[in-house]
């Protein structure tokens, strides 16, 4: 039976209230951003050096987010679950780095042989984070692989609390100050631009790690198997891939990357605390979504973008609006980006439309 439904002419008649609301939301955000930016730029309160500092800081921050985001994106790609405890694995890495660095510092190795000790600290922290990630997978996720979606999410929240408060109980609840590398104090001048040495180290180290990881996923047999499992878990199993092993490898790599991120974070901020993993964790997830979840280059790109926005955004946009203490609101910028991406482009910058297809 075919009934001719009169289609109203003119696109505006088909707009629902919801769409109007969403459009208003979009326009409001764009107007606010433009207004704030022009306001700041016209006032010209900041010199180009300040901008460059913020830019480099954003880059190093973003590199750390990108390293954490890799773990989220790989696990989501394979298991379609948010590894809520991933931020805490990062925190464990930072704590391990703290104890390793202190042990080296006491023996004078820390400043005597910085390259060696940085390598040792990185290796130890990555190892411990890797083991923690595997433990979490074994205890909290593997028994629940066939349960409905909400169940592993709650279990992950439980794991996150458990790790945080276990670290608090074991190592104390205060902030611990991280020893400083003498050689990384001060600035290097590149192309006439002064760059803080720690930030340069962070950027270079994370670039190296990410390249290694990218090559691993794209070039090795295990990496190919990982991509296959993420594409279709059943077919991969039929092709003779040991899915359990691949999941373990995924968690291991994600954990190691988070551990490395923990070391770099501690280098920049020079303190560790048991709750430090929560916000970077959520922001790294934002980065993963921003780049398109399940997509490894996307996570790297998303992390860098997020770091830049977060660092440059407050003074670029909010300062021009006349908001006092704009830096207080840098997390608001990050979360607003998260919400905007989820609402308007859940596929992220590089991703496919996962949210519709698989969520």
């Amino acid at each position: 039976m075919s009934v001719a439904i009169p289609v109203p002419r003119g696109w505006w008649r088909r707009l629902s209230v919801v769409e109007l609301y969403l459009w208003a939301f979009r326009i409001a955000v764009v107007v606010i951003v433009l207004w704030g930016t022009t306001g700041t730029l016209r006032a010209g309160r900041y010199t180009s050096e300040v901008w460059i500092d913020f830019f480099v800081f954003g880059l190093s921050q973003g590199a750390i987010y990108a390293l954490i985001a890799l773990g989220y994106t790989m696990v989501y790609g394979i298991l379609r679950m948010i590894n809520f405890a991933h931020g805490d694995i990062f925190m464990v890495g930072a704590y391990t780095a703290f104890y390793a660095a202190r042990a080296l510092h006491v023996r004078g190795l820390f400043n005597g042989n910085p390259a060696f000790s940085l390598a040792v600290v990185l290796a130890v922290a990555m190892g411990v984070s890797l083991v923690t990630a595997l433990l979490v997978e074994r205890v909290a996720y593997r028994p629940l692989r066939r349960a409905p979606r909400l169940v592993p999410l709650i279990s992950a929240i439980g794991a996150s609390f458990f790790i945080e408060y276990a670290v608090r109980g074991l190592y104390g609840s205060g902030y611990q100050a991280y020893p400083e590398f003498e050689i990384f104090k001060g600035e290097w001048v590149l192309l006439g631009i002064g760059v803080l040495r720690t930030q340069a180290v962070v950027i270079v180290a994370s670039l190296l790690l990410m390249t290694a990881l990218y090559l691993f996923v794209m070039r090795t047999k295990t990496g190919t198997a990982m991509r296959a499992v993420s594409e279709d878990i059943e077919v991969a199993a039929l092709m003779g891939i040991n899915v359990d092993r691949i999941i373990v490898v995924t968690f291991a790599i994600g954990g190691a990357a988070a551990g490395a991120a923990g070391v770099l974070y501690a280098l920049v901020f020079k303190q560790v605390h048991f709750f430090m993993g929560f916000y970077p964790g959520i922001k790294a997830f934002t980065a993963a979504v921003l780049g398109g979840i399940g997509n490894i280059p996307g996570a790297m790109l998303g992390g860098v973008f997020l770091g830049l926005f977060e660092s440059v955004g407050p003074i670029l946009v909010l300062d021009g609006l006349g908001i006092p203490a704009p830096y207080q609101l840098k997390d608001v910028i990050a979360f607003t980006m998260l919400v905007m991406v989820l609402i308007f482009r859940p596929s992220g910058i590089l991703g496919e439309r996962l949210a519709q297809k698989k969520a």
Partner: protein
Amino acid sequence: MTATSRPWRRTLRTGLLWGTGAVFVALVGLVEVLQGKEIITGVIAGGHLLMLLLAAGAGLSAARPQAHRPGVAVGSAAASGLVAGLVVGALVALASAMPLRGMFVAASPELFAILSFGRGVAALPWIALTGAAVAAGGGALIVLPRAIRALLSAMIGALLVIGLLHEQVQLLLQADRLTPLRELVFSFEGLTPVGALLIAGVSAAVSGLWQVQRPRMGARIAALPPQGRRRLRLVGMLASVLGLLVLPLFVGPFFSQVLVLVGLYTLMGLGLNLEVGFAGLLDLGFVAFFAAGAYTVGLLTTGTDLAVASLSWWSAMLVAVVVSLIAGVFFGLPVLGIRGDYLAIATLGFGEIIRLLVLSDFLRPWLGGSQGVLGIPKPVLFGFEFRGPEQLFFITVGASAVIAFIAARLRDSRLGRAWMAMREDEDVAQAMGINLVNVKLLAYGIGAIFAGVSGAIFAVMVGSVFPHSFSVLVSINVLALIIVGGMGSLPGVVVGALFLVGLPELLREFSDFRYLVYGAALMAMMILRPEGLWPSAAQRRELHEEIETVPPGEMIEAEEV
């Protein structure tokens, strides 16, 4: 496979695992804190008890696969206890060889004195032997007949609960007439040995009676005509209402405070249950609505400069209901198109944005920034001032009852069915003619109202409103409590609130370990009993059916739709 072919290996592994657990518990600081709590005065304190329980647990889990061969079961239990004891002994030896305190804050000399019964390294064989003996006892539990096992676990459970909560129980027994009883059972620090025997006896008797009588009672209730059954239920409900109304008179301000808090979380749980349990909309920013209610009441009733108006609490609460409804709808509108995990993260982001904005200097002139809104007066009704927790308890119970009733009626209404249809499959629900936009917005709006009422009561309970009270932890707590109680189940919300809010409040002195235990409990709960403590019938059927009958491949496909 290895379980049957290599029992020794398995026993060894069990022992190592539980021993590592014991070492963790010790280094995390739990043992030392618990040791400060005498369970039975002069006989055993909490720290030792915890270690012994762990040994018994090792024995139990080592004996379980061998349950059909009693001798082997007890033997392997003892062996695993020995191994666990050796692991703990190794920690003691390590601690005497090198200072651990630089790294582990809890690794104090007192801790190792507790672990080694005050003897240092020389106690190593003692630790191992104690572990073996206790584990053998634990393993023997498996071999014993079921009825005796039930009796024993009732006794141990009652002793543990009353021993741990003895201060609170003693608070309840403050009346003069009860003093002789109190002094018989309790000392200043814990149970007296006589009291422990008494409690063990009573709980064993009750448990025995229950075992004998339960089938008979069940049969009698089943034999009643439907009218009689309904009358029985009515009597039960009336009795519990009466009990609730006189409760604050008996329990005093401390318990009333705890109960009010449980009530507030129940209210929030009912609201979130409506969103997550009924409609399947996973919301981690729920605390924003709680904050909306609290801030509305705060700004409308406060006596400070921030006041927008000076209404009475009652009319401010009505405004709060409207404000939180609007907040819910505005919050829901942008996220209408987002599903599943993404929705959880988007709402989490929203909740944090709101908290950060409230906290910032930017909105300080209107919302008070980090100092919040102070000086909120208590509600007054016909000259009766709801001064403290004992009085606010009535408001909370009243609000909870009304809202639970609304929630129950909503669940069985057309709207409730539409929510559940949407929870099962959005696309199919839409195809069946459900207007997803309206139904979703109603879920957000009504859920927000419940949370807003809770916030309104919270504001007067505390007397002030700070942004720090509205962290994402609250949202996660509420989500956890409805899941622990059982998703979509209304009594489950109350049970969940009692367990996850009430119990930790009572165990305040262990508040450092609250979230540690909480995290472990969430994981254990999801693995062992994902349907919750008091599941709705549908949920129970669903979870068990899915796990047992659907092959893994189909499961994945069904989820990807």
